[in-house]
């Protein structure tokens, strides 16, 4: 009996040693892949950063308003952010490849999932950037038009336009990466509908007088604005 237990324990020990013996090279390979991946990712990060500096990427981002958004959100400048994204995407890819080498059944397919996820993440980032650009353009156009049309509180109106476009872009980006899709879509639909309903009630019921004045301004009766009383040319 004792001999049987001892044999069983010895067999388990031998099996364990065999497993470790088989796993050790894989672990070494995985660590090597991760280390090499880090070096490659680091090199790519600096190459991308150098390229973006040479292309004056930050200057372009400032012109379209992305730079200001990053500054407001306390994020690093655009070229550093892009290079960081490249670094992490490459290194995470290598890490997942290394994990795949270990041969754990539960982790199989992670590389493939990651490879499918990366393009969607990139598209989501593009959607967000385009959303920021469109939001800034719409904000500026609305502000200038509202000022020249003597619309009351032009900054509030233009700010609301920018917020709506940003929310829309954010919802589209989250939907693209399928992150909490149902919650995001439902929340967006509820919020957007509530804002529109609120504006309709506020404007139609509470702001009737203001609406009349705005419409009178847009479609004036004889009796013109002061600056239209004399000819400018």
């Amino acid at each position, binding site marked *: 009996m004792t001999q049987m237990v001892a044999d069983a324990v010895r067999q388990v020990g031998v099996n364990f040693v065999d497993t470790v013996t088989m796993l050790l090279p894989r672990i070494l390979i995985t660590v090597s892949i991760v280390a090499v991946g880090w070096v490659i990712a680091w090199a790519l990060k600096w190459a991308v950063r150098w390229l973006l500096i040479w292309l004056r990427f930050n200057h372009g981002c400032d*012109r379209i308003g992305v730079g200001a958004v990053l500054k407001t959100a306390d994020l690093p400048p655009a070229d550093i952010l892009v290079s960081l994204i490249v670094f992490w995407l490459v290194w995470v890819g290598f890490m997942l490849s290394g994990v795949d080498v270990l041969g754990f059944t539960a982790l199989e397919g992670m590389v493939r999932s990651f490879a499918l996820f990366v393009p969607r993440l990139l598209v989501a980032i593009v959607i967000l950037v385009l959303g920021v650009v469109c939001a800034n*353009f719409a904000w*500026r*156009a609305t*502000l*200038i*038009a*509202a*000022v*020249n049309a*003597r619309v009351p509180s*032009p*900054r509030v109106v233009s700010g609301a336009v920018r917020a709506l476009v940003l929310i829309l872009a954010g919802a589209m980006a989250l939907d693209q990466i399928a992150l909490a899709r149902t919650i995001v879509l439902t929340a967006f639909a509820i919020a957007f509908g509530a804002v529109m309903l609120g504006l309709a009630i506020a404007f139609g019921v509470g702001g009737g007088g203001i609406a009349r004045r705005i419409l009178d301004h847009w479609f004036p009766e004889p009796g013109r604005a*002061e*600056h*239209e*009383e*004399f*000819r*400018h*040319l």
Partner: protein
Amino acid sequence: MADESLLSDDLLRQLVAVGHVDILVGIPTLNNATTVVDVVRAAQAGIGGYFPRARSVIFNADSGSDDGTPDLVRDATTDDTGTVTASRPLRTTQRITTPYHGLPGKGSAVRMIFAVADLLSADAIVVLDPDVISLTPEWIPALVRPVRDTTADIVAPLYPRAPADGPLVTQLVRPLVRAAYGWRLQEPLMGEFGCSRRFAGHCLERPAWGSGAIPDGVDLWMTGEALANGFRPAQTALGPRLLARARTRPGLPDVFQQVMDAVYACLEMHDSYWLTRGPAQPVPCTGTLPGAVEVGPRPDVTGMAQAFARDVVALHPVLQKILSDATLAGVTAAATAPGPLVYPDELWAATVFEFLLAYHRAVMTREHVAQTLLPLYLGRTASFLQQYGSSGPAVVQDALESLGQAFELAKPQAAAQWKKA
């Protein structure tokens, strides 16, 4: 040389029948039935009364009027009950009216007029505005003589103006053209003008004219072309310029956009000239200078001044992208200072040049740049009228001269930054 594809076969036949002319009066029209007859009669009387021996033609380029304008031009007579002509011309003034095709607008019409003038070898060309109801026969010799006497290639008008009249010209376009092009031209936006065939031929040779690159403000473009290419400018005194009340006239934002686009396009086209141009020279003037315009009570611009204060605060984030810190601080201080609005000449000159630099650098779309300048322009107008709205002509003239000098002083720095951009 004119592009003959501008001229239809039918028109060419008519022009060949006309032959060489000494004077061509061009009238671009679009639904001007209420005013064009008087314009044609005045042109006819001017030619007949002052150039009886000249071969002449009145050429109407119509852009598709649907109120019978071309028929009225063709059928207009100079016979008018109660009017006795002192002399009868020795030659008949031909009259041709034709539709023009291509890009709509005055630019295309003037291009056709120049093409016809070139084909007819007209020595002097006059282009009139069919909306002007104060046009008299004396305008024709005033615009023609400097060209026929070969003392000028382009003759700009001089109108008497009240302080509140034409601030877009007096506060922005005139001082800017003076500083940039180095000529003290009073009316750079020539509503009507005279020019030589040499100048018309030069304009026809510009490839940009047929391509749509010339902005809607073709008048300013022609002024710039003349000044930048060595053509001799002159200005001639005409009477007050009164326009018919139009059924529809573009609003101030559209007009302002058009003028700013034209100004910028001209500065960009001619930058090799104006960046090195020195101080402004006077432009030779013919005729009796316009008399004093009756000045009424100062216009009430309180609302404009208050709107300026609000608008500067509201547009602050946009102005930060366009104006330098010093200029923005000055504009904000002017807008928010208690008491009457004062927008100094130097600050206004700096504002205008920095906006043009913003155009040049494309810090944002050009429409946004122009529309952002509009409230500042209205503020400047309010400031000027508050100070000089009921002043006499001499005081106003001194104020405008001071403004012109301020623009000239601001130009070198703007030119340096333009080159860097």
